[in-house]
């Protein structure tokens, strides 16, 4: 599979392209993660393989503790696997060092978390600006404001997270995720901390933004409603993919 699309090579994840919008392909090959807990080895992920086509949306479902977050963390390169590979547009994420993976995330990934992960000291606007500023974008404030307007929070830019409801906080997080024009969006239970009604609104917004901007989407969720909206569902059980 490596080098399958040589035409993309110059646009590959490792080259610093000019944010020319291309979807990213993900290939997971025999991925495994074990940790040592006291005397015993705990196998959190065992031999997981699957692919996500460019522009596809995939839901990873499974009960709590089945290893979903661990898998997502590995796809993002936040942790290293015990074995196996993650290929983004054909290049192995783990050939890069920690800072190389960070740079890669900075260029092409957006994140949405269950616990929102907004910084309490910053306003909504500043929270959205943060990844843009880190990427050295000049008009960070304008771009961020635009995205906040898109999620319907144009009036709340100066508010701190503590002054926003959970749903509003997650909308800020969505604006932040899409502000960097990601080619992959990784979401870890984005509705997990929200009530059903608010969760539904967030799901709607997520897919709307994804349609408008386009990104390969990987969503970890318990939420059948959210999973149903994805093109494909993967079920994880005890660290293995059981249904595809």
């Amino acid at each position, binding site marked *: 599979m490596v080098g399958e699309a040589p035409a993309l090579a110059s646009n590959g994840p490792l080259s610093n392209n000019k944010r020319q919008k291309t979807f990213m392909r993900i290939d997971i090959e025999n991925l495994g993660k074990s940790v040592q807990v006291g005397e015993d080895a705990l196998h959190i992920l065992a031999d997981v393989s699957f692919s996500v086509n460019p522009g596809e949306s995939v839901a990873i479902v499974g009960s709590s503790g089945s290893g979903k977050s661990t898998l997502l963390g590995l796809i993002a390169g936040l942790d290293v696997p015990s074995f196996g590979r993650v290929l983004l547009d054909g290049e192995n994420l783990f050939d890069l060092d920690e800072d190389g993976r*960070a*740079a890669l995330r900075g260029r092409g990934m957006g*994140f949405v978390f269950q616990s929102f992960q907004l910084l*309490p*000291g910053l306003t909504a606007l500043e929270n959205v600006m943060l*990844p843009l*500023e880190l990427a050295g974008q000049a008009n960070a404030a304008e771009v961020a404001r635009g995205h906040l307007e898109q999620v319907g929070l144009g009036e709340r830019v100066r508010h701190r997270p503590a002054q926003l409801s959970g749903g509003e906080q997650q909308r800020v997080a969505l604006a932040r995720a899409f502000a960097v024009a990601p080619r992959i969006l990784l979401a870890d239970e984005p509705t997990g901390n929200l009530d059903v009604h608010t969760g539904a609104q967030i799901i709607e917004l997520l897919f709307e933004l994804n349609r408008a901007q386009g990104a390969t989407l990987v969503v970890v969720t318990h939420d059948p409603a959210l999973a149903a909206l994805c093109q494909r569902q993967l079920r994880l059980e005890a660290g293995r993919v059981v249904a595809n």
Partner: protein
Amino acid sequence: MLPLSLRFLAREWRAGEIRVLLLAVALAVASLTAVAFFGDRVKQALGREANTLLAADLAIASDHPLAYDFAEEARQRGLQVSSSAAFLSMAQTGKKNLLAGIKGVDAGYPLRGSLRVAPAPFAEDAPTRALPGPGQVWLDSRAASELGVRVGGEVELGAARFMVAAILTFEGERGGNFMALAPRVLLTAADLNKTGLVQEGSRVSYRLLIAGADQDVADFRDWCEPLLARGEKLEDVRDARPELRQILDKARRYLGLAAVLTVVLAAAATHMALRRYVQRHFDQYALMRCFGASQRRLLSLYFLQLAGLGLAAGLLGTALGWVTQLALANLLGGVLRLGLPAASWQPFGLGILAGVALILAFALPPLLRLARVPTLRVLRRDLGPVAGGAWLAHLVGLALVAGLIWWQAGETRLALIVSGGVLGVMALAAALIQAVLWPLARLARHLPPGPRLGLLGLRQRGWETTLQAMALSLGLLALLLLTLVRGDLLDAWRNQVPEGAPNRFVINIQPRQVAPVQAWLASHEVPNVMLYPMIRARLTAIEGRAVRLEDYPEGRARNLAEREFNLSELSTLPPSNELEAGHWWWPGQTSGFTVESGIAKTLNIHLGDKLDFDVGGLPLSGHVSSLRKVEWDSFRVNFFVATPPGAMSAMPKSYITSFHLPPQRGAVLADLVAAFPNLTVIDVAQMLNELRGLTDRVSQAVQLVFLFSLGVGVLVMLAALYSRRAERAREIGLWRTLGASKRTLRAALASEFALLGLLAGLVAAGAASVLAWVLANKVFDLPHTPDPWIWLFGLGGGMLLVLLAGWFATRDLLDEPPLMALRME
């Protein structure tokens, strides 16, 4: 990178988190620089002014014209040379006589500083390089008014008449001895010869004055020291105005102590504030890593932010310090009459450097911790930094604090004592927490719910509680210690010039006048005056060994050994004397000596030693039967050596007395001198007032610096209590969700803070009592009065203060809706 970190810094500022940090460091820098600025100015001034007090860089003082031509040698070495000769003698006008200090000076006088003259008494004066012309004298205003003569009038000195050409308003070379207190008449050495007053046997004090480059003067000093004969001695600035020097030294030490403690507190506050700062940034760090920033980039981002903060704190603190030293200088400058030179720029650099260094040194360990936060934290909140050795970084911080302490203390001993005390307090606080908290927590289930929650909370946050207790103890220690030492210092200064201290001395009272003078004084409302006989004698032998100068290498001992003592006869131990060894006279004892213990030590005289004196050609000998400790600064008449009454009945003597006279009753003295024309009255009221003024102002300066440290101490406590606010908020939210009432929670918080305050107060009071005693004895050389109230202050005050600060730090948390509190992270 820099603009980005500045932008981040601005946001942090708005979020309010870093304000405590900035304030802590700025206050620390302020007190450091205030002391540095002021100390620098005083030092410069003292250096300069002390030399003008001497009128030279070095002087050879003697009671006879110098045998060796030191002046010629000095000139050949390229040094400036002048000289003066001074003695007490009568100045006369047609109507009046005055015992005045006559001083004849050579060309070039003074070599350092300048004289100031005015055209009339109390008219505006100006410095001058000139000296009185031939046939002219300058009088000080006291001499002019007591002689009733104006500028242009005439004065008779011995065989010559002189025209009063100006009023002498300032003369640096004026020590604290009796001669210096007499009204002054100044003329040239050539004119002095014409008076014929200086003859064989006159008691003249000669001084050869030398000035030049430091090294040349030092070389000259080394060369001439071995050549000095009996009655000749070297003087330099260290000998000038010892009483002022002592007060200023102590004040400077106190400022040093305050500054050192402030450093410690600032370090503690910075440490606590930075810990919290970094903990609050775990999420941010992980998130920014997740968003693609490299570790190096993030660390430099934080580093730059903190450096910027340090710079701001340094600038702010230095500015504050500069303003404070202005206030200090205003308080003190006038009284010191030092004409404080402008502050040098050095403290600016040091202040800014200290600000940056303080923050960076303490930021290093937590920053390195930050770098160990796994990025995976964005998905798994429980992941903290990987544990690991930041001990090297901690060492950097400790070394920096040690350096700052040493720099501020200005002397190793003070630095060591304070450092030891601080470490002791930290260890003690940790030990006490271990010893008390765990057993107490076992009792918890017997307590009502509020205190129970509080106690369990304290135990559950084990290490954090210990840290808090340490910081609180340090804060309280600084407050208590500075209070105690300040008390000792102010007491000592107040006692130095007690209200009603004798301010007039009368000398030259003849034996037959004793009873009449006493009666006269009593009838003029000066009752119970003690008259002491005064007999000049020279110590010739100790235990049969001749007293030779060569046996006393040390400067002071040599000066004493060659000096003529004033012996007295004492029947009872005088006030402000304390028997240290031996016994007071047996009934009927007619010979023997009682010796002041200081001089006994210097001259190596022991209880029971036989002493031989030469009293104007007559021998006097006996054994030392007691040693006395004397409070010299009591301003009473005191004697180094005395005999039992009657032991010197055959020797020629005069009597001396001292008493206090309120200023408005000064006229009595004129009547006294009219009744007994041979008496000499010496008025030290002016000098006492000066001294009192000085101690008052120095006390104010000390209080000012004390307030500073107080502020930093309170800040440390706040920082300590604020440090776990977020966790506490979540805890409170959880408790409330689980059904705890506000009242219960309030009781929990109150009992937690009260217990912490009590423990910290206990540690601080204990440590402060010990340290105050050590400091008084080893550093300040002050009598120390233990103050039992300190325990009450420590325990009660500590508890109250921590309760108050704790309430302040958590007051808004209880009113948050539980959900909000749970969300606050």
